[in-house]
Structures are given as C-alpha cells and as structure tokens.
C-alpha cells in the first residue's frame, strides 16, 4: 500500500465514523424501512430511471440512424427539438408527480386548504407550450436553411 493510499484509507475511515454516527440515528426508527429508502432511491435511479430514459433515447437514435430520411425536416435534424421539451416536461413530472398525479391529495388539502386538481392540467399546458416553442424554433431554422 502506498503512502497516498494510506492517507486515503484514513480519510475514508474518518468519513465512515461520521456517517456511522449519523447513520445509527437515521436508522433508529425503522432500520429496514429507512435503509431500503436510502439504498433504494439510488438503486431506482441507476436501474430503473436511467435505463428507462436512456433506453427510449437510444431506441430513437437507432431508428433515425437506420432511416436517415426521417431524421431531418428541410435539412434540419429535429432530434434535439424533441429531446429538449421532452426532457424538461419529464423533469417537471418527475419532481412534481405527487401533486400532478394527486397521490397526496388529502394531506395537501389538510395542510393548505387547496385542491391539487389544477396541477395535471397545468403540467399538460406547460408541456404543450414547451413543445410549441421547440416546434416554432425548428420551423424557423428549417426556413433559414431553405433560403439560398
């Protein structure tokens, strides 16, 4: 073991001591339940969310590579004009899904006196606007590239 590795191991050990001190308190109420949420959130990201979005994107990219004719509108590649609004819309859904999908309706109403009913139509409207902005931008680019 090199000197550098020794120092690194020592630093890691110190980190584990602090993490352990906090971890014991974190897990105190429900070891399995809390541990599952802690590890599970990373696992769900790595093995569900990432494969899902990367898989959809890879399938789309592969399709356009096989059919190059489909990949452009008036000479402009449209892939990223789809990706950007889809990613932002998906992100908004990911973050605000409890309100949008109304899974915490009761607690939300009890706390705020408000209804979660508007969030789904609002998210939908924002999504439509995002795609519309992207489509208009694509159209402008296509017209520009069509000019001599």
């Amino acid at each position, binding site marked *: *073991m090199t000197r550098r*590795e020794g120092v*690194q*191991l020592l*630093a*890691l050990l*110190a*980190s*584990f001591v*602090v*993490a352990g*001190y*906090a*971890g014991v*308190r*974190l897990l*105190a*109420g*429900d070891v399995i*339940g*809390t541990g599952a*949420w*802690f*590890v599970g*959130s*990373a696992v769900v*990201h*790595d093995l569900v969310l*990432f494969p899902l979005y*990367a898989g959809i994107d890879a399938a789309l*990219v592969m399709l356009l590579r096989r059919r190059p004719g489909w990949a452009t509108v008036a000479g402009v590649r449209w*892939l*990223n004009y789809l*990706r*950007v609004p889809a*990613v*932002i819309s998906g*992100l*908004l859904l990911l*973050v*605000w899904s*409890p*309100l*949008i999908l109304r*899974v*915490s309706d009761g*607690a*939300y109403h*009890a*706390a*705020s*006196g*408000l209804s979660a009913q*508007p*969030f789904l139509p*609002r*998210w939908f*409207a*924002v999504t439509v606007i*995002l795609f519309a902005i992207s489509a208009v931008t694509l159209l402008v680019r296509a017209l520009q590239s069509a000019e001599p």
Partner: protein
Amino acid sequence: MSVLDRWVNRAADHPPPGPFRAGFWRSPLRGPWFTAILSVALLPGITLMFLTGLASYAAYNPNLAPGNDTTPDKGLLGSWLPGWPAGPFWLYWVNQGVHVTLGLVLIPVVLAKLWSVLPKLFEWPPARSVTQLVERASLLLLVGGAVFELVTGVMNIQYYYAWPFGFYQAHYYGAWVFIAAFVVHVAFRLRTMVGALRGRSLRAELRTPVSQTTAEEPDPDHLVSADPAPATISRRGALGMVAAGSLTLVGLSVGQTIGGVTRSTALLAPRGQTIGLGSQELKPDFQVNKTAAEAGIDPVGASWRLELNGAANTSLSRPQLLAMPQHTARLPIACVEGWSTGLQTWTGVRLADLATKVGAAPDSSLFVESLQRGGGFGSATLSADQVTAADALLALQVNGADLTIDHGFPARVVVPALPGVHNTKWVTRMTFLPARG
C-alpha cells in the same frame, strides 16, 4: 504476483455481458471535462444546501427546550448550534427560499452528473484494491445520500409521506451521512476536477456544434467511451438542456417563496395557487399551514380566555387583549417547505408587554400552547431574544381585520425570522419560564 492480483486480472478479462463491457457505453459526451463542469455547479450548490439546511434546523431553537427539538438524539450533530436570532425579519424567509429553490435547481444537475459517471457503477472488476473497494462503499453513501435527500425534500414539500420514518429525522441525519461522504469525495477528486477543467476551454466548448463534437481524450478513469458513437448533441446542447431544466424548475416555483403578484407564476409549486378559504374578511386571503379543520379547532366563542403564567398568573379575554396597547408589524410567515405568505400586516399585543403583565423576568423564555388537537407543532418555546423583539406579537388582527379561524383566531404568535410552524396559532396558554441559574 499475489493470488488476489491474479484473481483480479482474470476477472478483468472476463466481464459479464451488457453494461459491464466497455463497448456498451458509447456516448461521446462522457468524459472528465463534462463531469467536472457539472461538479463546478454542484460543489458550491451542495455546500449552500448543507449550510441553509443546518441553519433551518437551528432556526427551530432545538437546544432551547426539548419540545423544540425534532431530533433529540442528535448528540454531536447539532448540540453545539447557537440560538436563532429574532431578525432581520427576512432571515428565515430567504434561508428557506434558497434551500428549497436551490434544491430544485440542483436536481437536473445531479441527474446529469449521475448520467456522466454511470459507467463507473458497472466497472469490472468491481475493485482492484482494498482502498478502491472502501471508496466504492463511500460512493454508495454519496449517491444514496444525494438522491435520498432530494427525494425526501421533494416529497415533503408536496405532503407525500409515503415513507416509514419522520421527515425531520430522516432529512437531517441523511444530510450528515451524505456530507461525510461528500467531503472525502471532494478531497479525493478536486485535483481531478481542476485538471479536467484545464484540459478543455469552456468558451471553445460553447462554440462547438454537434457536427464537430467528438469524444474527449482517453482518461485513466475510463469515463470516456472506448468506442464513441457519432455525437447527436453537442456538449453545449447537453449543458444547455440541463440549464433549461433548472431554469424551468425555478421559474415555475420561485413565486411561491416571493409571494405577492409573483405567486401566480409558480404554476407547479405547491403554494402557487391563490387561496380562497371562504373568508369574507380577508381579501385577498393568504396561504395557511394547517387548516382549522385539520387541527381539530372548533369555532372559538366569547368564552375563550388566554391563560397567562409568569411570576403571577392571570387570564385575559379577547376584548381585554384588544384593550392593551396594540402594535403593528409587517412580517412574512415563512415555511420550512420554502413557501411564504409574503409580507402581511399583523396587529396585536407585544409579547414583551404580556411578559411585563405577569411580572416575568426579561431573560424568560416563553412556552406557547395551542388549542390544536393532535398533529405536530401544537406548542413551541421562544427564546428571550424572540420574546423581547420589538415586532414579536400575539397577533389578534391581520391586514386590518380580525384573524380568520384558519389564520389562528382568536390569537396567534408572530415573531420575526421564526420558522412558520413555531408561530403558534389558536393560542390557549402562554407560560414565561425564567432562565435557570
């Protein structure tokens, strides 16, 4: 060559299929520079998240009275925190607005960063030395902690309590687990980050279109694809997409923090809706935390009296309180969840005047109890600084009208820079406690 080394080498030659093989990861964007540029945003961002989180915890004055402490077994993780000041009035408002809004901003950056380093998860063999194995265990705490903190924070501000633990404990101790791993991660990787940033010019990257985007030079950490596919998006485009995601999240939520006319821009934030609780007196009405119905408050009649305990004990009816000198203060109620009511005009009796009324010593703290039945935060203890602050009130009216029942009628506490839930509503009893010693 030791047995262990031989085993490692043999395993390295036979990776399992799929993501464990180098050829699986083909994006030409992955590389040390791309990862480092995201870290440039995350390093100060996460530091600020931790500090504002710690400040928010201190704002509840957990060391003043056991009832204030949501994590009484914290030990070294906060017993040293100082008391929270009673001003400036915007202190908790800004702190919590930054904490929650910045947390939302960082979500796309964290996702992009995880995307950029994901091949490392499937590295084969999983470790080549003991140090590396230990470091990978630490990375589990880093990534698990980051995602756990974001998930619990985001779910909490939407009242989605789908977990088997209390939010305060989980979010607070989870932050300590995370920060322990974060500090060593930064210590180990800072040089790599700086080196990677020096390797390419940001200005040049921001001028490079898709057609000229190629993979970075091969790196010792194998972030760069061994078999890069042609680029379908430039680094500029990918970073722009992350930034656009962050900006959209902020743009559609920050209005719930600022309040006023900006509230209606917070289209997707929990408190972006204007409220209409059916009150005739308050127009426009403002946000509440916990409705009277939820708190089990029955309409309070003329029989209500405030029980006031100090050196002497007394009780006061609402007309008697209204007959005392009235003080008016413009203060926001700012919630741990990041939203606020914006500035409202509160009128009532100064807490200091109530202390004088029962002969309480000026260094007394104040224990306030609510009529609220069940649920959290039915009582709170205020420090002597908070009791004696000029704008600290037992409010009876707001914006020129009597409090509505959802805003705490017949009387509620309003103190500058105090977390929302400690501004106790539906007050029934106030007890001044002299400082010990």
